[in-house]
């Protein structure tokens, strides 16, 4: 462990830290969050096991968990008893989808989801297919939105669950979960919504919106990694089968010693997010406009995802005739990604952009800029300059750009199979 520190020191000496514009992948903890968490990690703090009922260490830890539960519930206008702690949004998605599927399997075995969902939803659905469930993967429009009629048509007698995310992690497009909720409720189908990318960024009011299960993550909004929550509606009561058993924590829905410092950190992150939601959204929207304006006179750039219903801090752009990975390499002084962090290591173009109808070339040329709480105007200006310069350099290198400039219609070219 001492080596880690030493290594970090060396790191910080070697090169300057890139400007971080990958807040959709993860965020640094807010200092207020860090402070609260640290107080749970020391001997004189709330280090106890909240399940310990026989001493003050346990009671204090339990109180800290209760307060955090209140903060999370408050951001989404829910009852604290509707919050189940998990190890992150991936676990929440797994618990919600498998939990409903297993509990209601006698009622039906059909699930509806969408092609642009996060892997945590898609891979879980694949697993259920192996267990004998049937899953419909809805197409999206080029804007990224789901066509409500297509969704309505997909619902059948034996449909038990619709799982549609609130904000897409790659494009930032916001789905109309109020409409989906109305439709699902009217058909008696449970509606699960992955809100890992939306909580704290767009308003969520679960008194008004008919979502039955909702997944949350702490580390996407300045809380710690490794903790999340699942909202489970009480009225009407939604039942799920637990996926982790033993000890009966979280009213039997999720066992395991509660990670008090993590939970407290998530609670504080959600409290701060509620406090700053309106002001911060406006600021981020301003920064995004600034970023977009900085690129607006560039040739052959394409915005991925409709900006009319969109999370404020995210911008996904394809720079045509430039390959995404080489662009990211060229942009090593800013930390951005070509899409989801989870698929960073793969060479496949983004399945989300493909689902939006983007040709492979454009899907290969995409960059996701995601701005956040610590992004400044200077960061944005620096990014604009750097991106323009590097895109120009790479286009000079690009045979496709040359052909485009020579007036060759690339779609008519016969490419050698490779």
């Amino acid at each position, binding site marked *: 462990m001492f080596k880690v520190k030493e290594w970090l020191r060396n790191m910080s000496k070697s090169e300057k830290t890139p400007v971080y514009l990958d807040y959709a992948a993860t965020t640094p903890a807010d200092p207020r969050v860090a402070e609260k968490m640290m107080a749970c990690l020391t001997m004189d703090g709330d280090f106890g096991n909240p399940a310990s009922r026989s001493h003050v260490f346990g009671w204090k830890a339990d109180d800290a968990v209760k307060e955090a539960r209140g903060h999370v519930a408050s951001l989404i206008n829910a009852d604290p008893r509707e919050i189940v702690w998990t190890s992150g949004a991936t676990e929440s998605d797994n618990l919600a989808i498998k939990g409903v599927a297993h509990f209601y399997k006698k009622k039906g075995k059909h699930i509806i989801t969408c092609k642009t969902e996060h892997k945590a939803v898609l891979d879980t659905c694949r697993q259920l297919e192996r267990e004998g469930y049937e899953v419909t993967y809805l197409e999206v429009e080029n804007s990224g939105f789901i066509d409500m009629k297509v969704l309505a048509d997909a619902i059948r007698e034996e449909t038990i669950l619709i799982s549609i995310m609130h904000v897409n992690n790659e494009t930032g497009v916001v789905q109309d979960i109020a409409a989906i909720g109305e439709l699902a409720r009217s058909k008696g189908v449970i509606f699960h919504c992955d809100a890992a990318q939306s909580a704290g960024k767009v308003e969520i009011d679960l008194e008004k919106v008919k979502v039955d299960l909702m997944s949350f993550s702490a580390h996407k909004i300045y809380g710690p990694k490794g903790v999340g929550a699942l909202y489970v509606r009480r009225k009407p009561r939604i039942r799920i089968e637990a996926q982790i058993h033993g000890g009966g924590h979280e009213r039997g829905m999720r066992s395991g010693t509660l990670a008090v410092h993590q939970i407290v950190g998530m609670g504080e992150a959600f409290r701060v997010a509620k406090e700053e939601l309106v002001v911060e959204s406006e600021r981020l929207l301003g920064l995004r406009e600034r970023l977009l304006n900085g690129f607006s006179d560039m040739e052959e750039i394409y915005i991925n995802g409709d900006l009319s219903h969109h999370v404020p801090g995210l911008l996904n752009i394809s720079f045509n005739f430039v390959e995404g990975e080489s662009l990211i*390499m060229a942009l090593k002084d800013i930390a951005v990604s070509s899409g989801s962090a989870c698929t960073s290591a793969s060479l496949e173009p983004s399945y989300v952009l493909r689902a939006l109808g983007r040709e492979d070339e454009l899907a290969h040329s995409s960059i996701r800029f995601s701005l956040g709480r610590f992004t400044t105007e200077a960061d944005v200006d620096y990014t604009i300059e750097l991106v323009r310069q590097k895109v120009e350099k790479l286009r000079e290198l*690009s*045979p496709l*750009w*040359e052909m485009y400039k020579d007036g060759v219609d690339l779609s008519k070219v016969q490419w*050698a199979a*490779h």
Partner: protein
Amino acid sequence: MAYSDKVMDHYENPRNVGSFDKDDNAVGTGMVGAPACGDVMKLQIKVSDEGVIEDAKFKTYGCGSAIASSSLLTEWVKGKTLQEASEIKNTELAEELALPPVKVHCSVLAEDAIKAAIEDYNSKSAIVVDAPEKIADAG
């Protein structure tokens, strides 16, 4: 992804970027890959009457390894005869650049590119040099 210093060097300072007139009889052009796959390489060679590659230029759409592979290739082929250039193996490129396994296909593409350029030159020129068999299978 961790790249070797050599890849970074070629990527940041690519050698011999540019184009020749593809209709020039002394020029051979190889264009391989496809945009949908994420790589397109254009390699051009200028060949002397003696069958020696005098100059080479490239343009590449692709990842850092693809750019580095083609950049390195232009350095290697200059001064070589067509026969010598046609014998360059992708493994040599991959080794020189210390490409990770997932990027070895970039060096394969580069080998394809030089073969395609030589073939293009040969098809224009009267002098037929022993070209390697089975060009189509490479890659």
